[in-house]
């Protein structure tokens, strides 16, 4: 592999790794178009390499987030069940629906979430004093204090995770772009917990697809290695920055990124990408 190509892969992986760790996204929306347009990979090759990069970034960030307690592992496991089930249903349904229509629906959902995150202040439901329960957790707020929060609308959230899994698998992007606003706006999970939890979940979601590609020999190993090494390094940098960014700014930057994702998917729906 030429040094120039390797440098490009490392750079792409690092950029996606930083953004992924900061905002709870997988980075597929960066990997796939760059691998296709800049490195000349076929769509299936780009998706396979992208999945390895997503895992490296997600797992790299999770080593920090899970250890620090900012990712809610229990809630992540629960929501991942319905997300994974939704992805299977979505893959089956995708054959019967037009791609451009799905992408337009996805963009509309993401744009709506972005607008809500900009306009609505963050709402965290504090549990009653001395309350305990399966869905009462705590996190470190902007001031570094331990704050308790009670997850709301768990059943509805799980149902919507099924829809998020369906949309993600039908459009090929959007795991984190749908789940983070869902957790923050609907389930009232603080954004400082929602993003790391989404980061943790994304690796588990990507595992199924990546192992299938790997065992059937469809992954370009050298490209995957370059992207993965960059994504891993980027994710460690991103997770270090994440703890220093204030909640208000995190929501604002995340909304801007959501708009960029929606525009990127709309361009894809128009057949330009």
């Amino acid at each position: 592999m030429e040094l120039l190509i390797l440098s490009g892969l490392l750079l792409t992986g690092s950029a996606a790794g930083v953004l992924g760790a900061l905002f709870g996204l997988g980075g597929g929306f960066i990997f796939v178009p760059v691998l296709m347009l800049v490195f000349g990979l076929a769509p299936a090759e780009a998706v396979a390499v992208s999945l390895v990069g997503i895992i490296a970034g997600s797992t790299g960030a999770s080593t920090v987030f899970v250890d620090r307690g900012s990712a809610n592992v229990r809630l992540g496991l629960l929501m991942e069940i319905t997300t994974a089930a939704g992805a299977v249903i979505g893959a089956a349904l995708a054959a019967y629906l037009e791609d451009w229509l799905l992408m337009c629906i996805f963009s509309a959902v993401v744009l709506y979430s972005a607008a809500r995150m900009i306009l609505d202040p963050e709402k965290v439901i504090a549990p009653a004093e001395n309350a305990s329960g399966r869905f009462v957790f705590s996190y470190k707020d902007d001031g570094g204090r331990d704050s308790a929060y009670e997850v709301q609308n768990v059943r509805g959230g799980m149902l919507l995770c099924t829809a998020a899994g369906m949309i993600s698998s039908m459009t090929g992007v959007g795991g984190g772009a749908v789940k983070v606003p869902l957790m923050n706006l609907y389930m009232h999970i603080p954004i400082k917990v929602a993003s790391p939890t989404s980061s943790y979940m994304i690796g588990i979601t990507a595992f199924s697809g990546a192992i299938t590609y790997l065992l059937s020999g469809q992954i370009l190993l050298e490209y995957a290695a370059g992207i993965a090494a960059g994504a891993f390094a980027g994710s460690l940098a991103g997770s270090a920055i994440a703890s220093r960014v204030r909640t208000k700014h995190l929501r604002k930057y995340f909304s801007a990124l959501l708009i960029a994702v929606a525009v990127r998917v709309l361009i894809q729906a128009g057949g330009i990408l």
Partner: protein
Amino acid sequence: MNTNRSTAMALRISVVLGIVLTVAGLILSVTGNGDRVLYSGIFLLVISPLIGVLVTFLSLVLSGDRFWAGIAAVLIAVTFSGVVASLL
């Protein structure tokens, strides 16, 4: 047994080992001998999220947290079913 600590440790060991093997394989591939090392590194990297879930499950079982251990078990079953279905 602290679930977060043990899960983070499992993720850290598998992903760092995976990255080290991957980079070693990439360097060895210049001489034309790195394919197996590269494959092993990518394989370890790809299965690291699953290793994390398995360790979480074990930790929850050992700490007697039956509800969340059950949730982890269901996720493992759903994930394995999905992989088997896509390989068939």
